[in-house]
């Protein structure tokens, strides 16, 4: 251990599934409370108190779901790739499990982002689907998630599945900026001067403060969903160890 002093201690503790199970058990109630408080406050604020947009009217309130879910879907992919890389490099079991749990959550959040984007498109553009750069990028991100889920479920051995999906997630991570750039460019080529949904200059504070609350609330919700899945995964994989047996028997 002496030569590895440069890594903080919790990093090694994190590698122990049992420690991880215990610490998430302690953190879970905190995040549940935070998520409920933030999401309820944010929703009430967004729906009832935030001012209506002068151009889009009240359909603007969809932003409080659409933007947080888009941000979360991207961060979730990032987390999945980073956790996968840690699993590949340090052969850390918990990191593999985190990466595996990210994929279904991220895919569902991407669906939420796409659905709200489409619903928002109806009053704004007059059609349910518009090949807007952001929506198209999100659709491709959703495809990347689907590919990872498909690969993970096709490989039987847990270790191989984790490593393969980690490689794929990293390849995807390198590609995401390229995809984003090319889709943006393609979009300006094909439909110049579209009405941008989110890039508005100077959003007043009454509008973006609830948005911030919702974004943080969504992150807390993600933490809760993640921990719930992670704890299942730990129990499932460590089912033969004595501490899990005690846990189940007791």
């Amino acid at each position, binding site marked *: 251990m002496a030569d590895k002093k440069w890594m903080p201690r919790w990093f090694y503790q994190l590698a122990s599934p049992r420690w991880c199970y215990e610490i998430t058990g302690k953190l879970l109630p905190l995040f549940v409370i935070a998520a409920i408080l933030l999401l309820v406050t944010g929703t009430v604020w967004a729906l009832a108190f935030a001012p209506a947009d002068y151009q889009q009217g009240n359909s603007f309130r969809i932003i409080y779901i659409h933007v947080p879910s888009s941000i979360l879907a991207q961060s979730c992919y990032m987390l999945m790739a980073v956790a996968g890389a840690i699993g*590949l490099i340090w052969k850390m079991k918990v990191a593999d499990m985190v990466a595996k749990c990210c994929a279904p959550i991220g895919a569902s959040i991407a669906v939420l982002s796409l659905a709200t984007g489409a619903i928002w498109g109806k009053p704004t553009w007059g059609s349910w689907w518009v090949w807007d750069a952001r929506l198209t990028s999100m659709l*491709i991100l959703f*495809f*990347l998630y*689907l*590919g990872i889920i*498909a*690969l993970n479920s*096709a*490989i039987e*051995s847990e*270790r*191989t599945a984790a*490593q*393969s999906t980690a*490689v*794929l997630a*990293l*390849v*995807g991570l*390198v*590609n995401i900026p*390229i*995809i984003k*750039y*090319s*889709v943006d*460019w*393609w979009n300006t*080529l094909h439909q110049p001067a579209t009405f941008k949904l989110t890039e508005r200059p100077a959003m007043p504070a009454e509008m973006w403060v609830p948005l911030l609350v919702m974004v943080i609330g969504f992150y807390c919700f993600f933490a809760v969903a993640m921990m719930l899945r992670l704890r299942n995964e730990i129990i499932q994989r460590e089912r033969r160890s004595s501490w899990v047996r005690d846990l189940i028997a007791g």
Partner: protein
Amino acid sequence: MNDSVPNQSTEESMVHVYKVDGPFWGALKRDLLLSYRRKSDLVNPLIFFLMVATLFPLGVSPDPTFLADVAPGVVWVAALLATLLSMDSMFRSDFEDGTLEQILLSPQPLYLVVLAKVLAHWMLTGLPLTLLAPVLGVMLFLPGDGMWGLVLSLLLGTPTLSLVGAIGAALTVGLRKGGVLISLLVLPLYIPVLIFGSAAVQGAVTGLPLGGYLAILGAMLSLGLVMAPLAIGAALRISVSG
């Protein structure tokens, strides 16, 4: 291949670094020879390419102006699908007869061997597709000005398709039903090449300068050349050991 011995001393390994032609050309020659002996695998993607392009006039409309409009996209999508179709067999036979394991165990730098295999794959699919593309262009009434754009963009774009597709092939080589899975993994990653490839053709048709598009396709190819063999190598090690 027999001129490469495991390097023991540093001096010998220095020499080895300069003798990179050993594993690279060896693997390239071997793959080309093997494909030459199985000629049907060579022709299948080309026939597929031709058929997909035929489906569009039949399915949508044989109107020349309409076809000229969609021709860049159709040719590019067809090339992309044809590459994808040939991807599954890339490492499959080597995996089944154990050659892949020997390659991974051998002291040759995996990077070079993988690069040679991808190059061989491109020479047998991407290059013929590029050469066949003008025929499709004519069939789809692509204006004559667009031909150069089509050939050049395919020439720069198809190697990237082979490189990225090889990552998918390497990840799924150990699985029995790899075929459909590869498409799921790889198609989203092909989108930037598709966008800039078909835009280059469109640009050539409308008489815009091609330099910018080709530069971006070239940049993607160089990025792929540097990074993809690393990912392919890692994926092969995982698939074979698993």
